[in-house]
């Protein structure tokens, strides 16, 4: 069974490719998996008839008790045969229904066969949770099929409606399943059914499950989604909304009925909602002029009837119910397919426009007639056999059953009437309407419908055989009292009389409706559609109000909210009950106080500065002060990095600020500024308090106590911080250099505005060479205009020395302050100096590579180092120590993590290069272009 489902999934995956290859004929191939399901079911017929269910269990996560438990009893067997058989025929029909150049055909085929697979899985699931998963899958696929044409507003809306209603019901059902499963200690229905809870708990669970079944089967008050779903292509309607999806709810009722039919709410709920649905659907069907909608409302009505019969909860009613499921699937699918053919042949489905079709397409009319006879319950059709059984089952009950019986008979009257309306509307000669033009109907389009119609006849004629197949299900009901058997002829029974009465009533009603043109509307004060519309409107309103109230779209507002929460909650906790450390020290060395004073003054002034440049310098001063604090703390690597980063930052600021106005824009109103300052001070105070408490609260031994020893023995380096970066916490570093690559890419894409510019960016090395054809050492390029020649010469002299220093830092970093980050920054600064002295020509001369290449190479080296370790049997980024002798250099001590550090180095260089190219060179170019344009305009 699982294999069958998997084949459907596979078919769904390859279907679009097949359609691209063979056009619509590929649908015949796609029809094979459902056909296989039918054949598989038929091959197990004898076992199922003997009451032996096919069981298949695949362990999934044994530790959690999760398994894929599948089980095919009688009802499941019937459903598998229907889902597979009707599915295959509808796909074969679709192969002629759609045109081969339909753009969405591949997707249709995929979703359709996926739906068939989900439906198949649903009906063979024994595990309730598995059943739920398939249940929701059918919902999702049906959503995709209804909203098949995304351009159609009606289709989208109908799809959304169906999705919301059935999903909501599905959720309720899931809750019911969980209640049952938790009580039974198992989610396999075969075990849950033996182990049901009792009392109110069971009643609630049953009602929840019924909510799912009723919404799926479009029973009142959920019926409104089904007619809307007719927006789907006709094959979809034939399958989903007649044979398959709406039957899921009926199937669930049939599956659970034998165990829970006697639970208090089960019968009343099913009988009441079923009867209401039957009347409303039947009445609405009588008023339709669109043949397809007429059938849709007819389906709603029939689903109501099915719920009534299956809800009866007796052996005979159950037998009648499953027979009706079979009959309904056969005749309703046939009728939908014939409507599709009518539509194809004439271009309309409006019964006011159709006339004379019966004479012109007798074959089509014959097929439709067979199915319609079954729907109306005429012998020798399957519909007749099922309806007889239902009437008979109800005849022998109590008063309540008689009331229901009257309802069913009246429902049958309606059914006969709308059946006649359908036949008359589609095929009759209508006076006053000229005969509709009919295109020839190919036999391959009609054949699937004909097969289904003939199946309906066969089932009716072979009723006793069908009875033997379905009886094992009916016998599951405890009250195996009368032992009714399906047959065409039971003699002159009251049930036969009622059948005749229904047909006669139906003919009369149809004539009445035709003559009088009864237009009376039957409206209930309470309608599911209204509730749906109102709740959707309410949700929309709520969403707007909530979004409007919380999502202000103002960055300061958001930040303010977050910070106020920070001040109130953690801050409040801090003030309220923290054990404040009693002992503290003022500083480690008085010099810290001096550095701190510099930082404090610079930070406060920076916050007050009105000019961008002033603020920038003050922030830089604060940064250098921090670097000083790092030195005093005993962190030379940090100090080095901080100095370098501050310097690069200042270079960047200068590059950008030369374009921006000198002063900040108008400061906001004073009062809001005071609020900002107050919030800032509060957050600062809270953070300081946390720092104070946290530093004093430390009790555990730091994890880093062992770092120095590990650094030497495993990492092979003496600089513990550097070894931590490239070895102990190398994963962290890996993440961080990735962030750098992203940031660099972001900078470039913000400044290089068009794809064309981005192309040019990769041309930069070439462009640079074009501007200075032969790079000559110490001679300035001809294009350098405003820059100082002396400065350029000096920077060229210094450049290589600085680069050498960077390389030295890179490789000595393992044992002394330095490493990839600092080395990269030093190299970047060397490039920055070249750029500042000579503009973008000089930069291209100094680094004739694309920044993206450098970044990519760095990431490649870093990841490659890690992967190499993995390939050599170690862990990702594990480093190894290599000691070997080289002829000239002598003893060489080498650590593989040095390669990782080279990657870090390259990425930092790439970042700085990228910044210089974007914020420097490209900005220059843009402004030169603009200046030139301005100049040209002035000249003109």
């Amino acid at each position, binding site marked *: 069974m699982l294999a069958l489902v998997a084949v459907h999934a596979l078919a769904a995956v390859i279907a679009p490719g097949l359609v691209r290859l063979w056009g619509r004929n590929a649908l015949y191939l796609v029809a094979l998996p459902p056909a296989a399901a039918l054949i598989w079911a038929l091959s197990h017929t004898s076992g199922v008839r003997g009451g032996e269910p096919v069981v298949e269990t695949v362990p999934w996560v044994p530790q959690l008790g999760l398994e894929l438990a599948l089980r095919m009893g009688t009802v499941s067997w019937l459903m598998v045969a229907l889902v597979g058989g009707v599915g295959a025929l509808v796909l074969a029909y679709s192969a002629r229904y759609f045109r081969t150049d339909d753009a969405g055909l591949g997707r249709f085929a995929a979703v359709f066969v996926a739906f068939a697979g989900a439906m198949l899985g649903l009906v063979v699931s024994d595990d309730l949770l598995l059943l739920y998963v398939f249940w929701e899958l059918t919902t999702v696929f049906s959503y995709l099929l209804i909203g098949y044409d995304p351009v159609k507003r009606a289709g989208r809306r109908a799809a959304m409606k169906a999705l919301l209603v059935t999903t909501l019901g599905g959720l309720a059902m899931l809750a019911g399943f969980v209640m049952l499963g938790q009580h039974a200690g198992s989610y396999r229905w075969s075990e849950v059914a033996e182990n049901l809870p009792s009392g109110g708990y069971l009643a609630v669970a049953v009602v929840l499950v019924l909510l799912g079944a009723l919404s799926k089967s479009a029973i009142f008050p959920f019926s409104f989604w089904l007619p809307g779903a007719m927006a789907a292509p*006709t094959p979809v309607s034939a399958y989903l909304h007649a044979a398959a999806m709406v039957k899921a709810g009926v199937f669930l009722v049939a599956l659970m009925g034998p165990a829970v039919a006697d639970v208090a709410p089960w019968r009343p709920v099913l009988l009441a909602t079923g009867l209401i649905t039957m009347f409303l659907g039947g009445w609405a069907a009588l008023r339709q002029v669109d043949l397809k909608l007429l059938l849709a409302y007819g389906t709603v009505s029939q689903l109501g009837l099915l719920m009534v019969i299956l809800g009866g909860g007796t052996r005979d009613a159950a037998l009648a119910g499953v027979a009706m499921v079979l009959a309904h699937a056969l005749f309703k699918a046939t009728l939908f397919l014939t409507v599709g053919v009518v539509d194809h042949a004439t271009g309309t489905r409006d019964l006011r426009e159709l006339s004379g079709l019966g004479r012109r397409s007798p074959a089509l009319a014959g097929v439709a007639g067979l199915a319609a006879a079954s729907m109306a319950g005429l012998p020798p059709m399957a519909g007749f056999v099922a309806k007889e059984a239902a009437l008979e089952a109800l005849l022998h009950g109590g008063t309540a059953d008689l009331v229901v019986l009257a309802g069913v008979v009246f429902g049958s009257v309606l059914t006969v009437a709308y059946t006649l309306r359908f036949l008359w509307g589609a095929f009759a000669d209508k006076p006053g309407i000229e005969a509709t033009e009919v295109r020839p109907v190919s036999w391959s389009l009609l054949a699937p419908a004909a097969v289904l119609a003939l199946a309906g006849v066969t089932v009716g004629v072979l009723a006793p055989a069908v009875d033997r197949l379905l009886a094992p299900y009916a016998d599951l009901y405890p009250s195996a009292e009368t032992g009714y058997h399906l047959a065409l002829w039971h003699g002159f029974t009251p049930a036969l009389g009622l059948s005749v009465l229904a047909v006669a009533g139906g003919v009369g009603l149809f004539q009445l409706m035709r003559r009088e043109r009864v237009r009376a509307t039957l409206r209930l004060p309470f309608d599911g559609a209204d509730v749906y519309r109102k709740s959707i409107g309410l949700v929309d309103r709520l969403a707007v109000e909530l979004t409007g109230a919380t*999502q202000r779209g103002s960055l300061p507002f958001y930040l303010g909210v977050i910070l106020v929460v920070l001040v109130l909650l953690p801050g409040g906790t801090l003030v309220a009950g923290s054990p404040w450390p009693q002992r503290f020290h003022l*500083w480690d060395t008085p010099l810290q106080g001096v550095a701190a004073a510099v930082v404090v003054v610079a*930070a406060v002034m920076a916050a007050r500065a009105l000019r961008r440049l002033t603020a920038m310098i003050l922030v830089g001063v604060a940064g250098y002060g921090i670097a000083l604090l790092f030195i005093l703390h005993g962190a030379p690597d940090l100090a080095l990095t901080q100095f370098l*980063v501050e310097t690069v*930052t200042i270079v960047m600021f200068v590059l950008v600020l030369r374009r921006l106005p000198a002063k900040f824009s108008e400061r906001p109103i004073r009062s809001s500024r005071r609020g900002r300052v107050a919030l800032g001070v509060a957050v600062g105070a809270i953070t300081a308090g946390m720092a104070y408490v946290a*530093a004093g609260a430390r009790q555990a031994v730091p994890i880093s106590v062992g770092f120095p020893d590990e650094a030497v023995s495993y990492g092979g380096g003496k600089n513990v911080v550097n070894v931590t970066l490239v070895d102990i916490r190398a994963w*962290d570093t890996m993440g961080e250099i990735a962030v750098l690559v992203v940031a660099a890419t972001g900078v470039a894409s913000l400044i290089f505005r068009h794809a064309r510019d981005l192309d040019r960016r990769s041309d930069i090395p070439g462009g640079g060479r074009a501007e200075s054809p032969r790079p000559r050492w110490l001679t300035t390029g001809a294009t350098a205009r405003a820059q100082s020649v002396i400065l350029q010469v000096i920077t060229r002299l210094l450049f290589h020395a600085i680069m050498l220093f960077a390389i030295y830092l890179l490789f000595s970093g393992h044992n002394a302050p330095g490493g990839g980050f600092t080395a990269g920054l030093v190299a970047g600064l060397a490039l920055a100096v070249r750029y500042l002295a000579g503009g973008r020509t000089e930069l291209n001369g100094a680094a004739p590579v694309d920044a993206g290449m450098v970044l990519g190479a760095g990431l490649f080296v870093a990841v490659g180092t890690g992967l190499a370790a993995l390939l050599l049997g170690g862990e990702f980024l594990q480093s190894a120590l290599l000691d070997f002798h080289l002829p000239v250099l002598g003893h060489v001590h080498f650590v593989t993590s040095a390669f990782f550090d080279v990657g870090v180095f390259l990425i930092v260089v790439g970042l700085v290069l990228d910044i210089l190219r974007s914020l420097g060179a490209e900005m220059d170019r843009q402004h030169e272009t603009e200046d030139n344009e301005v100049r040209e305009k002035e000249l003109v």
Partner: protein
Amino acid sequence: MTPNLTYVIVIGVLVAAGVTLLLERSLTRVLMGVILLGNGANLLLLTGGRAGAPPIVGSSSQEEMSDPLPQAMILTAIVITLGMTAFLLALAYRSWHLNGHDEVQDDVEDRRIMDLAERDEVPDDDVDGDDDDDNEETGADRTLAGTVDSGRAG
């Protein structure tokens, strides 16, 4: 370990100045705020480990060494701040280039929703609406087969 009061004060001031700037609308100011705040956060990390001699094996005994772990964390944080600064600067420049200023504007779409909320309306979309008559819901069929005329219910 006892708290170093100097650090505590510097952290407080840096965070206070940083947050004040962060709440402004000018992107350049926000950026300055980010840098100051970042420095404060780095210092906060540093208070997690003791001060001492540089953590280089051989230059001093292990008992005297400063804690290397926060230092490694801070080091990458410093470089990341560099990347972030570059990105925000590019953002500020682009904003200035496009709008003539570098201010963070309110989200226009959010404004629209707030206007809707004030007028007590709902957005115009597919789910809500006039689907009470069945007319609209039919006739969507057959688009595939290309037939134009679709039946309409009455």
